[in-house]
């Protein structure tokens, strides 16, 4: 923990461009998670060393200045996580899935770096390393074009909570860091690729939120929320790429800031939420115990992740949607439809994300919770993360955002309005500082005018009988499960219906199987151990070689 504090302070001092923000984010997350881990030790002695090793790997990644060191840090980061998951999981699937996808991402990144053909971070003329490496990075962020429910929730859902916190919050952040670093170095980026990335991001927002809403595992819910937020960050990254290619500087800056703010919002809030899931003994949300003392923290975190101002999550969501609308307005041709559709899908996904978080916080802490007191060490990191999320909302944009203005008419003075603009024309603006000042002012006014709110308790009317039932968390999401049966495919005969299998995976599975069968048949017919066919192959090869030599 102390090393994290040192790292934090040094990264603030050595501010050398946008990328050091990632260090700031990561180190703050590590501090919070470490405070929580002091009392979180019912897993075994192996937890702390593995924890520290993972953090070390990520620190190396962040501070590397060459491809080789980057890759080394990447591997150091992945392997202790695999060990931790393997020691916690009850069967072999989660750690192997984690390792498989981790290695897949490493292979893709390695391929990208090899194509780049250098060992230091120089400017890259061709976009191919970017394309290949990006696919590797987005696997680490938890997304692959259609496999939504496969690896990330399984892996992150079975790790110990403080580990899940740093996995979700910071390991996925490394993916973002990687993409951003190579994007800054690349000169030209084809628009088709950026649009594909945008589509992947939007798809993951919607389906991540949907699958998360109907999930029953407390950590699984949060892992799907991670996928959803990473999708949003990916959309912002794609907008950065597009604006860089089309040379619209204002949107380029704004989208970059969006990436940073969204990463801040997501990482800090996700840490707090995962730490709160660590306080539960059982992993099923229907059987969870409601814990007091963290209601305010959780409410603020949920409101940030749902996109409410003046939290930083709200500023980031607003910026994302504004970017999309600006693009569709500026471009004024057929491609604008794509941006508007993406905006619509993102809005739907954010709605489901709000529902997801409300379901989570309601059943773990708010309303009719138990009377036990939590120890301070467990309570404060969550509260602290919530406060950071709130305070950063109305301080950070003013520090790093380039376009500000004031509107004295509405009382917003001294450059407090954050604007979005393109080619020096203003498009839209908000002011989080104004909002929080108004909130505080109105609360004080109503308190002074009406005094303390009077509360009266009345007995609930339940058709005249005494029974007091409560909707379970499973039942709360069941109407979506029934309505969207075709997509979600619940297996209703089992006691606990699981949603591990999604439609796309089934079709891809069928496709892979048919390819395998085709390959077998093809191989059998080609290499059919008959001498006559082999002689024919030799003669054919001879003819082809003669033709090639004659032509060339």
């Amino acid at each position, binding site marked *: 923990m102390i090393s994290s504090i040192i790292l934090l302070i040094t990264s603030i001092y050595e501010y050398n461009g946008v990328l050091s923000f990632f260090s700031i984010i990561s180190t703050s997350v590590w501090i919070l998670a470490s405070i929580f881990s002091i009392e979180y030790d019912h897993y075994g002695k192996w937890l702390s060393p593995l924890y520290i090793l993972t953090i070390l790997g990520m620190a190396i990644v962040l501070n590397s200045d060459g491809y080789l060191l980057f890759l080394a840090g990447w591997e150091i980061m992945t392997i202790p996580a695999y060990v931790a998951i393997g020691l916690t999981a009850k069967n072999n699937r989660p750690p192997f899935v984690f390792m498989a996808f981790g290695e897949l991402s490493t292979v893709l990144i390695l391929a990208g770096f090899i194509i780049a053909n250098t060992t230091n971070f120089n400017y890259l003329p061709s976009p191919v390393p970017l394309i290949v490496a990006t696919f590797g990075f987005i696997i680490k962020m938890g997304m692959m074009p259609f496999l939504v429910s496969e690896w990330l929730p399984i892996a992150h859902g079975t790790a110990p909570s403080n580990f899940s916190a740093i996995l979700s919050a910071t390991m996925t952040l490394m993916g973002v860091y990687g993409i951003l670093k190579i994007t800054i170095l690349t000169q030209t980026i084809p628009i088709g690729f950026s649009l594909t990335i945008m589509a992947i991001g939007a798809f993951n927002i919607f389906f991540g939120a949907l699958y998360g809403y109907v999930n029953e595992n407390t950590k699984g819910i949060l892992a799907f929320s991670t996928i959803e937020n990473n999708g949003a960050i990916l959309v912002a990254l794609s907008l950065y790429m597009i604006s860089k290619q089309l040379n619209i500087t204002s949107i380029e800056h704004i989208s970059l800031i969006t990436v940073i703010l969204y990463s801040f919002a997501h990482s800090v809030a996700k840490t707090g939420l995962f730490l709160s899931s660590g306080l539960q003994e059982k992993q099923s949300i*229907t059987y969870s115990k409601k814990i007091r003392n963290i209601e305010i923290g959780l409410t603020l975190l949920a409101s940030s992740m749902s996109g409410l101002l003046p939290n930083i999550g709200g500023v980031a969501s607003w910026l994302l949607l504004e970017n999309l609308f600006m693009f569709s307005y500026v471009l004024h041709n057929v491609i604008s439809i794509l941006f508007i559709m993406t905006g619509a899908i993102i809005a739907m996904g954010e709605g489901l994300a709000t529902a997801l978080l409300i379901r989570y916080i309601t059943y773990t802490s708010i309303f009719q919770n138990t009377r036990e007191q939590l120890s301070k060490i467990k309570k404060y990191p969550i509260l602290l993360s919530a406060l950071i999320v709130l305070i950063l909302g109305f301080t950070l944009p003013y520090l790093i955002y380039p376009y500000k203005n004031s509107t004295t008419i509405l009382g917003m003075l001294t450059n407090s309005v954050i604007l979005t603009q393109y080619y020096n024309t203003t498009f839209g603006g908000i002011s989080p500082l104004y909002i929080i000042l108004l909130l505080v002012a109105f609360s004080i006014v109503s308190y002074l005018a009406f005094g303390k709110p009077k509360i009266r308790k009345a007995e609930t009317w339940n*058709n005249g009988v005494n029974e007091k*039932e*409560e909707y*379970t968390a499973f*039942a709360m999401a*069941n109407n979506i499960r*029934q309505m969207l049966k075709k997509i979600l495919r619940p297996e209703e005969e089992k*006691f606990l*219906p699981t949603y591990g299998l999604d439609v796309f995976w089934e079709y891809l599975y069928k496709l892979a199987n048919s390819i395998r069968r085709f390959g077998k048949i093809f191989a059998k017919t080609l290499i059919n151990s008959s001498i006559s066919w082999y002689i024919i192959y030799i003669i054919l090869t001879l003819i082809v070689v003669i033709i090639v030599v004659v032509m060339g």
Partner: protein
Amino acid sequence: MKYYKWTQKGEGRKIGKIGDYCLYEKTITEEKCEENKPNITQTYGSFKFIYGPSAGGLLETIKFIITTNGEKILGIDAEVYKNREIVISGLTVDDALLRVERINAPFSASHTISFLLAVEDSLELEQDYPTQLKRIAEIELERIRNHLFVISRLTETASLNVPTYHLLHLVEKVNRLIGKMCGHRYFFGVNAINGVNCDFGNLLRIIDITKEFKQIFDGLLESRIFIDRLQENGKIIDENSIGPAARAAGLAYDARKDFKALPYEDLGFRTVITQEADSFGRFLVRGMEIIESAKILVELHDEIKNSNNERGKNHKQGGGEGLARVESPSGDLAYYVKLNNGIIDSVSLLTPSQVNLNLFLKSVINTIFTDFQFNWESFGIWVSEIGVMLK
């Protein structure tokens, strides 16, 4: 007991539990007639949801305990909250009649006529033919009124306001017709042994009412949003069902055809059957039965419009046991009466609502919450009959 005999095993279709015995189509037996309730398995995330006893959507007081895991109803149990104990042994037939009328007012004609047929059966009285025809007229009028009311409850649940109010207007018209002809809108104080105190001169007014109803019925059959709520909702085909629920499932069970005390066979009418066993089928059966009942009334009009309307002579002597069954608007209704020297010894009652309630509880499993109200209203269950205990 000239219509029934005691046997070891029942013959014909099973109707239900009457007192301590079990009633079949042709015989009555002493076996236990219990229904076994299905086991409710607890699934993950399921909990108990209470509907009733006092809720806005229910017309009467009944408590439902629904086991659900979200939108779906996995299991259900019903508890009647208005249990009335009515002391009826030791009373004369006239005094007992006052109480039998008030067991369930919308089915009052069926209750009193079934009771009186059972009493006449036990006293071995000769039946008066014009009185029997008048009794048929009462039951058919009551059938029309009740079916109109059930259909209006269905359209009210579907929020089709114009047909709901139009049907309520027709219910009021039928009530006023009954009030004008018999003095009381629910046939209280009208029936006696071998006598009916009604003047059926205005009976042909039912033709206009039925014509108006046919227009509404045709309109409802074309209303896709209404029919969609009823189809595939509460489908049940059970050979122990009665009334419109059985006839909707294609089973031709009708007490008008298989119990010969009332002379239905002298009047031409056909039993209405459909093959869809869901709420839509029950709605169709009720609609078409209104038109059939109107035809019966038109045929009866000539014969009963001029008969005298005094109370019949009361024969208070004699004793024995009698059993009679009529077709009430929701199914078979039977009374088993034991008389002793003109004083009632014991009365047992089989109401259609108790059989229909068990059927309803079976049919509602695996439907969702929004289907519940349609399914409940389509059976036409009156809870006041179920909670009554006759002592």
